[in-house]
């Protein structure tokens, strides 16, 4: 495909997306559900792309996403809840004297959230990154649980509001805010992956010993990857806080990590576009599949399986199918390209032809 055609395709794609967003923004009320799905998808996409940086590109199996998101979310929440609303939020014990006066605009708070997440990632990474991969998985998983229980602890009531959670977090004024911020985050990660550092990360994933022999300092690079990933995970958490408006420690359970993991696996480990695609599919898919939870009657026949909870069963079966039969995910480690898309349709077409051919031969 010629470069000019590609540019044309890109421009068309971007303008379609923009037009769609403007349309949604103008009909905010009617499409608030769709908007919320898109917002949530794109936020999860940032977390999944960040997870991909460690898990897919650097080959470190980290499962601490929920913990880092919690840090980002709480930082943003604590710093951006309007000062006048704070007394109402901290209605049980009141807020820490010092903190209660600090209010930051959203973006600095967001960056600070990412920063805290990265610092904590550094602290936990220093001991754990020297160990084998599955220990990292368990340690990070445990770490995220520690974060969660510390946040919920009554000892921190004055800061995190303990079990009561935080509310009145300013929500996005328009869909463009998360859209732009998330795109920016993903863009930065993609640029990093395509840089010399990204290649070093990939080298570590492929073969640690050989990477070391190429003069790559394993520990430093692993830590770098882990911290950057955590930074963006923290940002995703901050965005989630603003998206939800209300958070508590329960939001950041292990299931959140598993959700992100699922997105990454479905999209394909080592593929950024895969993660984005996966994020939209999983988030929207969950909503689409809601009909599984309603009783379904076909004619007079009550379909027996359809009732509450069935959706999540179907959902987990889908996950297992992906893991077992398409272990590479939708995109494998490839990235989206127009050629790829055209090729996909072509393939679909030719396969059908073959099928048709088979049938006619049969006759």
């Amino acid at each position, binding site marked *: 495909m010629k470069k000019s055609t590609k540019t044309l395709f890109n421009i068309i794609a971007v303008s379609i997306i923009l037009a769609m967003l403007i349309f949604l923004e103008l009909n905010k009320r009617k499409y608030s559900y769709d908007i919320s799905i898109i917002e949530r998808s794109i936020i999860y996409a940032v977390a999944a792309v960040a997870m991909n940086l460690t*898990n897919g590109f650097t080959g470190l*199996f980290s499962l601490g996403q929920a913990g880092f998101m919690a840090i980002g979310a709480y930082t943003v929440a604590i710093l951006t809840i309007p000062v006048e609303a704070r007394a109402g939020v901290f209605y049980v014990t009141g807020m820490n004297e010092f903190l209660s006066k600090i209010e930051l605009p959203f973006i600095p708070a967001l960056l600070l959230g990412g920063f805290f997440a990265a610092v904590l990632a550094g602290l*936990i990474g220093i*001991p*754990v990154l020297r*160990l084998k*991969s*599955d*220990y990292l*998985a*368990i*340690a990070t*998983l*445990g*770490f995220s*649980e*520690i974060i969660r*229980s*510390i946040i*919920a*602890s*009554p*000892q921190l009531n004055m800061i995190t509001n303990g079990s009561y959670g935080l509310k009145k977090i300013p929500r996005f004024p328009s869909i463009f805010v998360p859209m732009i911020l998330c795109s920016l985050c993903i863009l930065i990660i993609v640029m990093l992956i395509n840089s010399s550092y990204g290649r070093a990360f990939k080298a570590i994933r492929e073969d640690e*010993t050989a990477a070391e022999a190429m003069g790559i300092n394993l520990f430093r690079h692993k830590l770098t990857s882990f911290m950057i990933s955590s930074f963006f995970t923290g940002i995703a958490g901050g965005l989630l806080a603003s998206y939800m408006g209300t958070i508590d420690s329960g939001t950041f359970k*292990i299931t959140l990590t*598993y959700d992100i*993991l699922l997105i990454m*696996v479905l999209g394909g*480990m080592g593929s950024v576009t895969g993660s984005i695609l996966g994020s939209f599919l999983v988030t929207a898919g969950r909503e689409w599949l809601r009909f599984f939870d309603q009783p379904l009657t076909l004619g007079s026949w009550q379909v027996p399986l359809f*009732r*509450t*909870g*069935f959706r*999540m*069963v179907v*959902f*987990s*079966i889908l*996950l*297992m199918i992906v*893991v*077992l039969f398409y*272990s590479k995910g939708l995109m494998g480690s490839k990235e989206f390209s127009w050629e790829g898309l055209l090729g996909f349709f072509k393939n679909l077409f030719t396969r059908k032809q073959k099928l048709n051919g088979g049938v006619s031969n049969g006759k």
Partner: protein
Amino acid sequence: MSLATFLQHCLTGISLGGAYALIAIGYTMVYGILRLINFAHGDLFMIAGYLMIFTLADFPWYIAIPIVLIGTVVIGIVIERLAYKPLRSAPRMSIMISAIGVSLLLQNLATYLFTALPRGYPEIPYLKRIYQFGPLSASFVTFLTPILTMALVFLMVMMINKTKIGMAMRAVSKDYETAEIMGIKINSVVSFTFAIGSLLAGIGSILYFTDRMSVNPFSGSLPGLKCFVAAVLGGIGSIPGAMIGGFILGIGETFLVALGFSTFSDAFTFILLIVMLLVKPTGLFGEKATEKV
């Protein structure tokens, strides 16, 4: 803290530790052979709990218990066959993700079939009889758990060291291929390992739920994770290690709660893990693995 309170806490801790130990052994055995963190192990334990609720509704306990144990074993083997066997030559990460997937599936399936509402765990006769020793008071299962655990650990160690299948398990855990050319059927050994692991999860489930009296679809996930940590503490692959790890966790957690730090009782588990990984990455009884370049 008075002596009576202290002793009461000890009883609680040891009993909890015993149940943890039984589950931890399942992890350690599976990890030893497949190098797989079987995230679904805790959920299997939860499923065993539900099985007991339903079988005990229709059968007397002496029939129900074997049915539950057999059922758990069968489910464990089926999980291995469907979700892990096809991935045996796949990268480690894929198998781990598959395990997480199974865990999610079991939880969601349980929610779907039995609703999220907790179900009362039926009382198995004799187990819940309450005994009073002066100021101490505990049910029979509290005493039974640690004793049974130790007995089972002893049996397991004997089985692994003295029997033919145990020898095969040790061989497979060291070297698949060489084990295979000894004529050992890898698949059977792996299935057997899962069977034993599941059996212990089943027994652990009876003791644990009898003590805690209710089952919900998520009652397996956190104990599951903790027990994996117990296995790591003891040195993954080592059965007595897993037992000791289980007891350390159970007692530690109990006393933490007793001292008013219940917020940190879960955190404790994982802090212990990280500290252990720093100080002795191979765990208390783990063997050193050297990598060849």
